[in-house]
């Protein structure tokens, strides 16, 4: 065992969740004192891996060797800290009203000989750490007063204070400007030079090439390769991230595409969407691709009147519309299957048939009264259409699997019979069988003359089902590809 060369060795790490294998036999090594990048698409397994290292999850199988100790397992974040691992998460986890010094020492207070809290020593050490990193932050400032970039630096300082040997940074640059990025790179390099190892997760390949020494690629929970950054090209890296056979079947059929049914011109929402214009034709399956924070859901919400537009126009069936709320859009024939099926898509304590009839309630009402007979009829009809696997229509949806819950959400909107339906990550985290049902349904919908817009992070399904794909990046439209033009590399190139 080469104790000094490698700080972290993973062997066959496997982790599953109900219905999904997040990590499948991942093995690779991380050299001490390097900046080691970790890349992969959404859902590739990066987050899960980090959470195992941070003590939040526990691997089902496999071995972890850290810092000279074999077969370690972190059962809690505290154990992970004790071992010397610090994590800077994507979302800032600082306590807003507390000061920089207080946050840095949270859970790690220093006491005087009398047993009182020793702020003097702590503040001194805090200042030292900050100064050593070449930054200028007042240790007495409340973190809420700091910019996001500075907050992130405080997070890093917090980890440094723990004297960790391995610092994991999860998408640290997502919210930083160019200049702030440079400063952060400086800090990271400095830490590396002091012998600290950094695992750096990012979608931004440019950063990887500028900063990292080594890079590991994950795809579908599997380890694809770990190579020195100097030995790969950008294209090769992208190919490693996405390269897969389009083994799944996508029931795509050629149908006649009609007139433009939805058009957006110059959509702007300050800070979120920048001047987006696109149009969708009747009968199309229109895909919207992009990374997690590229603004796709926000775009859907803006078009549907859920959020207000700062500027821009939306035309539906050729007429300008001004939706002052989601209900207006629904009445005009649009619909949305939301991203979070549990919190936004279903009332978990209600049964299947009640959830299915929730949007188009008037269909089951006669003379002001909800008719049980009709609820049962339509509940059965649409549950059958989606092939929902359920003990009975009266089962509460919370007892269904993720895939079946999603089918109920889709069934609900099928009953509403919207002309233009937007699906936000419809197949995220659901099993292959349920996915196939949803694809089949998309095809049936457009055959009936409806229009489907799919927001998705899964490139195979976009490539398999869509007539055209629009790619977004940081709130802007980066490009649009037709079915013929599109392939995984091209889309990924636009995504990053």
């Amino acid at each position, binding site marked *: 065992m080469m104790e000094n060369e490698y700080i972290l060795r993973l062997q066959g790490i496997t982790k599953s969740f*109900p219905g999904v294998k997040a990590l499948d036999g991942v093995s690779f090594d991380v050299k001490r004192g390097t900046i080691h990048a970790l890349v992969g698409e959404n859902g590739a397994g990066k987050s899960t891996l980090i959470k195992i290292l941070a003590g939040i999850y526990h691997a089902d199988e496999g071995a972890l060797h850290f810092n000279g100790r074999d077969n370690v397992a972190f059962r809690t974040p505290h154990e992970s800290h004790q071992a010397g691992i610090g994590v800077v998460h994507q979302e800032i986890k600082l306590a807003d009203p507390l000061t920089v010094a207080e946050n840095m020492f949270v859970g790690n207070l220093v006491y005087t000989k009398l047993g009182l809290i020793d702020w003097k020593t702590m503040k001194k050490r805090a200042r030292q750490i900050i100064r050593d990193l070449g930054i200028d932050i007042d240790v007495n400032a409340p973190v809420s007063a700091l910019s996001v970039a500075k907050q992130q630096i405080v997070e890093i300082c917090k980890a440094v204070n723990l004297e960790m040997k391995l610092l994991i940074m999860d998408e640290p640059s997502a919210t930083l400007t160019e200049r702030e990025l440079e400063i952060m790179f400086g800090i990271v390099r400095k830490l590396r030079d002091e012998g600290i190892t950094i695992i750096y997760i990012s979608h931004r390949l440019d950063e990887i090439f500028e900063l990292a020494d080594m890079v590991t690629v994950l795809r579908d929970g599997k380890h694809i390769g770990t190579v020195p950054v100097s030995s790969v090209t950008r294209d090769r890296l992208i190919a490693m991230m996405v390269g897969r056979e389009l083994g799944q079947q996508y029931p795509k059929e050629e149908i006649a595409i009609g007139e433009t049914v939805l058009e957006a011109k110059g959509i702007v929402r300050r800070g979120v969407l920048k001047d987006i214009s696109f149009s969708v034709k009747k009968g199309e399956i229109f895909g919207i691709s992009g990374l997690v924070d590229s603004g796709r859901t926000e775009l859907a919400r803006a078009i549907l009147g859920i959020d207000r537009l700062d500027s821009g126009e939306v035309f539906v069936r050729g007429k300008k519309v001004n939706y002052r709320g*989601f*209900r207006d859009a*629904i009445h005009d024939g649009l619909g*949305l299957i*939301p991203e979070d099926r549990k*919190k*936004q*898509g*279903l*009332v*978990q*304590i*209600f049964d299947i048939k*009640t959830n299915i009839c*929730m*949007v188009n*309630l*008037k269909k089951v*009402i006669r003379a*002001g*009264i*909800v008719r049980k007979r009709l609820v049962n009829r339509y509940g059965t009809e649409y549950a059958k259409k989606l092939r929902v696997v359920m*003990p009975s229509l009266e*089962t*509460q949806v*919370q*007892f*269904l*699997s*993720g895939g079946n*819950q999603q089918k109920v959400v889709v069934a*609900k909107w099928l009953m*509403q019979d919207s002309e233009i339906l937007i699906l936000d990550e419809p197949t995220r985290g659901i099993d292959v069988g349920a996915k196939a049902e949803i694809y089949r349904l998309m095809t049936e919908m457009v055959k009936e003359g409806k229009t489907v817009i799919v927001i998705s992070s899964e490139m195979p399904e976009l490539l398999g089902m869509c007539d055209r794909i629009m790619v977004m990046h940081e709130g802007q439209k980066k490009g649009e590809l037709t079915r013929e033009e599109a392939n995984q590399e091209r889309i990924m190139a636009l995504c990053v």
Partner: protein
Amino acid sequence: MSQVGARAAKENPVLKALSKFSKDFMSVLGIIFLGAILSLTTEKFLQWDNLKLILLQSSTVAICALGQAIILLTGNFDLSLGRNVAFTSCLGALLMKGMLYDGMAPMNPTLVILIILAAGTFIGVCNGLLTAYVGLPAFIATLGLQNVCYGLAKVITNATPIATFPNSIAWLGRGFAFPEILKKNLPWCVVLMLGIYIFAQFIFTKTKLGRNIYAVGGNKEAAFFAGINVKRYTFLAFVMAGFLAAFSGVVLMSRLNSVAITNGQSYEFDAVIGSIIGGISLTGGKGRLIGTMFGIIFVMLLFNGMTQWKVDAFMQDVLKGIVLVIAVTLDVLRNRKRV
């Protein structure tokens, strides 16, 4: 998820039915159980006069409690109901006796009733606007209205009780239905209570209004994404509760033939206790309204029992608090096993 589903299906069907029944009708079982204990341990309990008294006392609280139950279904809470009852009944008293301002003539009782129902509804409208449209937490909005109502009640009555109202309204609180046939055994206020609850139960299980209110309480976000006007239904719940509070004030006025600013005191809390015992969940979207009526009867039964057992009156307040905590704990436990 699928494992839980499988487990649910494998349960003994008899046990499952029994558990469902007991969850829905815990209050009824509680009444039967408590009634059994009381009739065995006291002399006076099982006498019809005593039981009639319990129902009479329950009726005013129950009518007000229905409003609170509706609001609980939407996931909110109304602190102002009790003082709403106080204010509207005091206002009604002054109008009926022509005592609101100098030189006022007594007004037609029917007209007065309509006016105070409108007043109570208006209080509900204020609560609803503040909570649903302005976005204040329900707790704060209704707390404000609670104090406003109490203050107004004190102002208009100068904190003095008022008694004796026209006989035309006596039937509401002191009258009996079909006195010849049923021999004064079925008070009108009990009939009103039953009628209102049955009507409400029907509306809430069978109409769009009812279903959507359950949806809003069940999952506000999902209701929104299903195109339900969440603000409107949140608002309407408060309006209905305001109306019902005023209604219960009318019945109370008639039954006591007097009003004081203490009318309806703590009705909103009695309502919460009754609702939870009756199966309404604090988290919203769950429970049958008719359960609330039984819940209130149960609480009244308990306090009647306290009196029979000669428990100190002040201790009864302590017990009320204990019952509230137990009831809410049961609710929390009930919900915990599910998700």
